[in-house]
């Protein structure tokens, strides 16, 4: 600490610097350790992808599916009515803008970390020095995201756009993002705007559906739905700028004005609001570290749209053996928890339409791209149905109340995700089939992969606790616990392995008979892997969830 005479207060900046430097001094590892933690996983994923690409190309050759390179061929049936890029881009921008507003309102947007609120906000120094850096830093993310999203959309939706128009379009996107950031910041300061958050959450859920619904209505019903009005919403103004209009650039001025007002009122933020934001931010960080999409959705999404219902399924059963009755009780309890959160189930359902939504957009019906989208959607789908298993992993004593072996409990936990994800795969690939992507054998192959995805859900949910005793690594963002990094791939790895035959067949455009036994074998392997209960050494652990109950064993 800098030397001061009695009563001479430090500035917020001095306290900030002291905290940051003191933390960095104690880090022991380096970036090399971070890389060494993840390189085997990254290397494994790269090898898998390269093998899959080679297999896809070979499969296309052996099935005689033409000489067009797989990455250039459209996967859609000829004559399918694709959506124009402008409408698709407008929908994407509306969805992302709503998501940004929702996320910003949930995590602050002006935020400190939880320890910072605890140790800094009680000090008798002007708080502006604590809050301003977070305010400025938090503004960078939406601005960077806007550039990353708007530039490709501008290029895709306005074929004639020159470099200047793309640049202005990106600027307009930054203006839009900062305006939303400013609005969220102002609502945080005044402590209002619940309805805004609810509305944004609903838009995030509904908007992506409009793509596939519009495409299907146009093709099947023969009645195209005109959603051209979407491009005139302010969220689409960056696209209008790409087409040569300049008036939408007023968004920049509006954003500047709102940010100035927010900046001038930063000191009005109370400790309780800053603490609430810090806790929400910590929730987000925790769910990212645990790669838990369900928790991440809860942390980022609108809590107001996740109203639990009062569904009550029977929990007491009188027929059959004690084991059978306990299994039924456990299963019924799990179903009850799932059904009490319909918004979570709806999110998983919406995820099943994402591959078809992407395929419905002109120029995006490209098989390798769809394979990637299917993987990502399935990954989020698996974790979306994993919250009950994650709760069980964190609270093993609940399952311990039932007279069931650990293995049986784990298998019962598999049932709902396996059934749900089998239906999920059937829906996702049937929708794709309606658009002309794939074939009935591919749908069947996808259905066979469904139970394996359920097992991947369990593997992610019952993953071992991170090794928090490993040395923290100094980074520009402060010390990062290395032990948490390794956890990233537990779960997503099994999703990739289970989906490999489906993705290869989707990308190659054909389904050889050999794919079915391979898929069955991988699904069986996943089921064994995901439901395996590892014996925990008596002295091991370190995790709250890692000891004491029937579910304490960690899946490997």
């Amino acid at each position: 600490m800098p030397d001061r005479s009695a009563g001479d207060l430090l500035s917020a900046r001095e306290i900030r610097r002291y905290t940051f430097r003191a933390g960095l001094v104690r880090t022991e590892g380096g970036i090399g350790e971070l890389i060494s933690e993840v390189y085997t996983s990254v290397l494994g994923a790269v090898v898998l992808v390269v093998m899959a690409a080679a297999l896809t190309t070979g499969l296309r050759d052996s099935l005689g599916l033409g000489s067009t390179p797989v990455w250039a061929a459209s996967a859609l049936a000829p004559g399918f009515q694709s959506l124009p890029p402008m409408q698709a881009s407008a929908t994407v921008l509306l969805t992302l803008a709503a998501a940004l507003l929702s996320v910003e309102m949930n995590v602050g947007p002006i935020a400190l970390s939880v320890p910072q609120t605890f140790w800094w906000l009680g000090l008798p120094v002007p708080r502006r020095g604590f809050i301003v850096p977070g305010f400025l830093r938090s503004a960078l993310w939406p601005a960077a995201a806007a550039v990353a999203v708007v530039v490709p959309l501008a290029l895709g939706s306005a074929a004639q756009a020159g470099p200047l128009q793309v640049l202005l379009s990106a600027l307009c996107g930054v203006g839009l993002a900062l305006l939303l950031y400013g609005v969220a910041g102002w609502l945080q300061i005044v402590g209002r705007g619940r309805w805004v958050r609810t509305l944004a959450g609903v838009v995030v859920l509904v908007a992506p559906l409009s793509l596939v619904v519009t495409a299907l209505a146009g093709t099947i019903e023969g009645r195209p739905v005109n959603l051209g009005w979407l491009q005139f919403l302010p969220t689409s103004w960056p696209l209008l700028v790409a087409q040569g209009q300049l008036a939408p650039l007023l968004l920049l001025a509006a954003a500047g004005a709102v940010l100035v007002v927010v900046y001038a009122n930063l000191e009005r933020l109370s400790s309780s609001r800053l603490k609430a934001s810090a806790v929400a931010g910590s929730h987000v960080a925790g769910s990212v570290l645990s790669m838990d999409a369900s928790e991440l959705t809860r942390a980022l999404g609108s809590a107001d749209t996740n109203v639990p219902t009062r569904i009550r399924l029977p929990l007491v059963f009188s027929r059959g053996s004690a084991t059978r009755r306990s299994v039924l009780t456990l299963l019924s309890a799990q179903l009850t928890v799932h059904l009490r959160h319909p918004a979570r189930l709806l999110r998983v359902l919406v995820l099943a339409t994402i591959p078809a939504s992407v395929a419905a957009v002109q120029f995006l019906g490209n098989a390798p791209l769809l394979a990637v989208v299917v993987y990502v959607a399935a990954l989020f789908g698996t974790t979306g149905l994993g919250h009950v298993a994650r709760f069980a992993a964190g609270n093993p004593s609940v399952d311990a109340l039932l007279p069931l072996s650990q293995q049986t409990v784990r298998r019962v936990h598999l049932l709902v995700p396996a059934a749900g994800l089998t239906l999920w795969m059937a829906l996702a690939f049937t929708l794709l089939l309606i658009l002309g992507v794939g074939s009935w054998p591919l749908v069947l192959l996808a259905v066979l992969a469904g139970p394996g995805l359920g097992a991947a859900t369990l593997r992610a949910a019952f993953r071992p606790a991170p090794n928090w005793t490993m040395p923290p690594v100094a980074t520009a963002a402060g010390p990062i616990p290395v032990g948490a990094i390794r956890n990233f791939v537990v779960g997503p790895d099994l999703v990739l392995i289970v989906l490999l035959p489906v993705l290869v067949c989707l990308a190659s455009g054909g389904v050889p008979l050999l794919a079915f036994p391979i898929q069955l074998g991988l699904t069986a392997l996943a089921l064994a892997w995901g439901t395996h209960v590892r014996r925990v050494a008596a002295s091991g652990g370190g995790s709250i969830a890692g000891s004491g109950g029937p579910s304490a064993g960690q899946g490997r």
Partner: protein
Amino acid sequence: MSKQPKSRSTASRGSSPSAGGAAPAVELVRAQRLLVGYGSSPVCGEVAFSLRPGEAVALVGPNGAGKSTVLKTVTGGLEPISGTALVGGKPADDRSLEFRRDVATVFDDDAFFPALTVQEHLAIVAAGHGASDVEELIAAELDFFGLLEQRESLPHNLSSGQRRRMLLAAAFIRPRLLLILDEPEQRLDTAMRTRLAARLRTEVDGGLGLLLVTHDPDFLRAVATRAIFVADEVRKLTPAQAATAISVENPHA
């Protein structure tokens, strides 16, 4: 046993805190027909009390009765449903510099910088409050709270009780006119509870205002000058009556 460190209460420092003013007769806290809760749902009956320098008011009552909610409202963390909570004659507002200078709080939650040691945490608080003798103050508080050996420890290497001691040390290392403690006895061993109670009593006698929630009848008897039983119907009790009420509520306490 370590002797008590020199008091860092604002009153003993000789300044004239705005929260309560220099005159000892000024009320540090005044709750008038205060109804607290979440949203529009009250958690207990209306609360009314005042706290002056040199007084220790204890809020007692069963779990979930609303004691901590009263504390949070008094410290500005929650808006009252109705009524007023004044600190130093003004509505409680932690955005005020004076409020943060004069009011120290320890609630039943914690958060630590994972890469900062015990003494570095305390250094932030001491230096942030303008202390010049930071090292000396830290040493004294670490000694009192039995954490000298853990001064270089990181928070995750501390036991739950040691983390609690560290939070209490952070409240004592800074100047304060009003100290607000939510179940300070929690996670402390019996010896530490006794020493803490003695120190609080000494500081209250020296002019500190203390508002606390406690479930420990011995702690209550040793520290409190008045007590308020928080429930659907709020009642004022003597410390002896309150201690009896707690004992009935929790015969093993």
